[in-house]
């Protein structure tokens, strides 16, 4: 087992490299004194940018479609967070090694990916495969614009692990490659698949005979019934992340007016946030605050506290993604009666453009291959192994998360009731899967930008018009900042 601290120095590691790494670690310990900012910085100027072109390769064959060198080690970094790292050591790496017994996998787990790898990127000596996730995630947009990530096109064009007649690209759920594409090129493999929606306390609803609302009017009726019993109808992620409420807000607006409104938001078009459907949806969300349908005090809570109270039966609805069940596993375990389920966000009007079953879903959990890696093809081959049916199915079984590999959860017995309902909702949605990209394209636009504005809306401190105006201001700021590389999408 390798821990995050003990790291085998790279074979070609120079004194400068080890020096930089140590200084960086020491700098983190010193904290905010500017020492870290400085010490790892200047002095790396003589970098070997063309290392990738010298990358070793083997012969391309049916058996080795990427042409990887069959005797070079692959250095792998896995974020040791909610998913742990056993799925890599006990599942994906054995699959990989079965095919490539001579390739040694140099596995590392890290809790703070950025702190461990930033100095190595600067030194031009990154590992071959990174699960760039967690709080210490390195900004993917910046990595791309600095030219530090390898283009994954060869991987997606290669035949899949299981069936040589189908490319990797064709085994993935729609939207997967797009979610990792910047400037027209795929740089990030998003492996886990997340379904977003309204999660509710199904046990409580059933006991009280409350129907699952399909329209906003029904939602308000149910909320009135719930509130009358002294239970709070809704929670959200409190002072930590009011932005979670943007998800039902934007989903409901999209169902009402169609996915074009999301395109104009993502493309930072002026007036995008002032679209009538969005205003109507924001008004609906604000009405929850006006009617005091939020759990008292939720505005000042940490997100885990708010979700914990929800899982303990003090509230009924909670907006989130399908990680919620894992995240609240301890609170759920305390309350044996609790049964969670997911519903698609209700329709604002019966003549909505998109059906009720429409859900927001997206590939997440990013994996990348650095452009300067010693063995980038080895990193991509590792991805190909992950994307095998066995790798994806095993991942779903082990960590209770869907994957981007189409059909990989079919036949998998999902015991977690929440995830099972998310899987069912995704199947019911068919092609009606929506998503928006501004949070991943422009991190600060969502947080703190829209996050803070929506926070004020949820405290009913501002009107819907003021909310839209302030969201516009946030978008304008991004639009006019020349230092931010802009992305666009169509339809």
């Amino acid at each position, binding site marked *: 087992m390798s821990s995050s601290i003990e790291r085998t120095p790279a074979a070609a590691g120079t004194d400068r490299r080890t020096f930089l790494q140590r200084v960086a670690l020491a700098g983190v310990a010193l904290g905010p004194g500017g020492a870290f900012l400085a010490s790892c910085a200047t002095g790396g100027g003589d970098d070997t940018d063309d290392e990738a072109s010298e990358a070793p390769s083997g012969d391309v064959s049916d058996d080795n479609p990427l042409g990887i060198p069959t005797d070079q080690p692959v250095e792998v970094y896995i974020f040791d967070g909610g998913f742990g790292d056993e799925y890599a050591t006990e599942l994906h790496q054995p699959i990989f090694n079965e095919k490539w017994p001579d390739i040694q996998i140099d596995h590392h787990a890290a809790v703070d990916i950025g702190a461990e790898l930033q100095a190595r990127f600067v030194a031009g000596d990154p590992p071959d495969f990174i699960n760039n996730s967690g709080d210490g995630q390195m900004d993917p947009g910046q990595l791309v614009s600095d030219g530090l990530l390898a283009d994954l096109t060869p991987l997606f064009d290669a035949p899949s692990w299981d069936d040589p007649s189908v490319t990797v690209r064709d085994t993935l759920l729609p939207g997967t490659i797009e979610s990792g594409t910047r400037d027209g090129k795929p740089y990030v493999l998003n492996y886990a698949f997340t379904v977003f929606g309204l999660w509710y306390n199904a046990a409580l609803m059933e006991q009280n005979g409350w129907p699952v609302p399909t329209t906003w009017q029904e939602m308000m009726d149910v909320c009135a019934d719930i509130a009358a019993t002294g239970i709070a109808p809704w929670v959200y992620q409190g002072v930590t992340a009011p932005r979670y409420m943007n998800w039902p807000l934007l989903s409901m607006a999209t169902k009402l007016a169609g996915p074009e409104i999301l395109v104009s938001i993502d493309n930072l078009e002026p007036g995008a946030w002032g679209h009538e459907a969005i205003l109507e949806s924001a008004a609906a969300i604000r009405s929850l605050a006006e009617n005091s349908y939020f759990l008292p005090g939720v505005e000042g809570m940490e997100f885990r506290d708010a979700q914990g109270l929800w899982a303990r039966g003090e509230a009924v609805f909670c907006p989130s993604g399908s990680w919620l069940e894992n995240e609240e596993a301890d609170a759920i375990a305390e309350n044996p009666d609790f049964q969670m389920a997911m519903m698609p966000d209700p329709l604002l009007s019966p003549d909505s453009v998109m059906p009720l079953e429409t859900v927001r879903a997206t590939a997440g959990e990013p994996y990348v291959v650095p452009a300067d890696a010693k063995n980038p093809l080895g990193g991509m081959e590792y991805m190909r192994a992950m994307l095998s049916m066995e790798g994806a199915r095993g991942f779903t079984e082990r960590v209770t998360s869907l994957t981007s590999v189409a059909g990989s959860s079919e036949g998998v017995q999902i015991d977690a009731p929440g995830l099972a309902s998310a899987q069912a909702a995704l199947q019911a949605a068919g092609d009606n899967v929506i998503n928006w990209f501004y949070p991943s394209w422009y991190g*600060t636009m969502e947080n703190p930008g829209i996050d803070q504005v929506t926070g004020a809306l949820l405290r009913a401190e501002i009107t819907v018009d003021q909310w839209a105006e302030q969201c516009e201001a946030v978008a304008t700021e991004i639009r006019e900042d020349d230092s931010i590389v802009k992305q666009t999408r169509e339809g």
Partner: protein
Amino acid sequence: MRHGKYPFILAFLLPPVGIYAIYMLSPYVQAIYISMTDWSGLTAAQTFIGFDNYVEMWGDDQLRKALWNNLILVLVVPVLTLLLGLFFASMLNVGGRSRGGAVTGVRGSSIYKVVYFFPQVLSVAIIGIVFKYVFAPENAGGILNRVLGAIGLGGLQQLWLAEPNYLIWIIVLVMTWSFVGFYVVLFSAAMQSIPRDIYEAALLDGSSRFTTFRKVTVPLVWDTVQVGWVYMAIQAMDGFATVHIMLGINGGVEGAGDVLGIAMYREAFAEADFGYAAAIGVLMLVLTMVVAVAFMRGLRRERVELA
């Protein structure tokens, strides 16, 4: 013996000076250089952009907010801490009077000493998390609101951490609370070195406790106060850990509790803009030095000599 003096001295001086230069001085110089680049922190490539980062800083409203908050911290926290620290220390050491005219601390002072010092033993992380739950809503375990409710002051209950106007004052409170213990101990040490006969003379002359405090204790521990003040101002200039833990990386609701340290961290690690972060770091360096010099000068007063 004179012969090899300089090589001998140099041989011993060079390693420490060299290490100091490499690890202490060069980072400052590098940070100043980086603040004039657009370095993202991820590549080896840096483009020199002159003072653009500083120009951007000038127009950055959020940074202004952070600066203002730091100003509040620098002015309020040291004053509160010193007043409380001096008061508690004098109570512990020379506050008691009843027992036969001897100059001692108030009753139970040995216990209080431990209690005051207690926060100093806890790490900032623990203090931050504990106080997050002091100010949390009642149903999420908030102690303050529960206490207010229990003593019939339910009207004063607030969602403390959701109210932008309170954030920085909550930080002031927490920082003061966590600092006071150390200064009580520091001032106690200073006060113990004051000869007892001075107090006895004051006592005989019928001086009140407050007069004794003002005319005897404070002048005689002033040097320590001055050092403590500067040290505290530097600590308050930082405030990073407390704010980060209690309010998060954006400085809480509407960024109202932001401080420069957080802004720097955010620019570097969330926005991958190490150049701008370094510029904030340089600003902090300059401000800290200005504050230190200003306090040293402003607080200078005549030394009292104990002959």
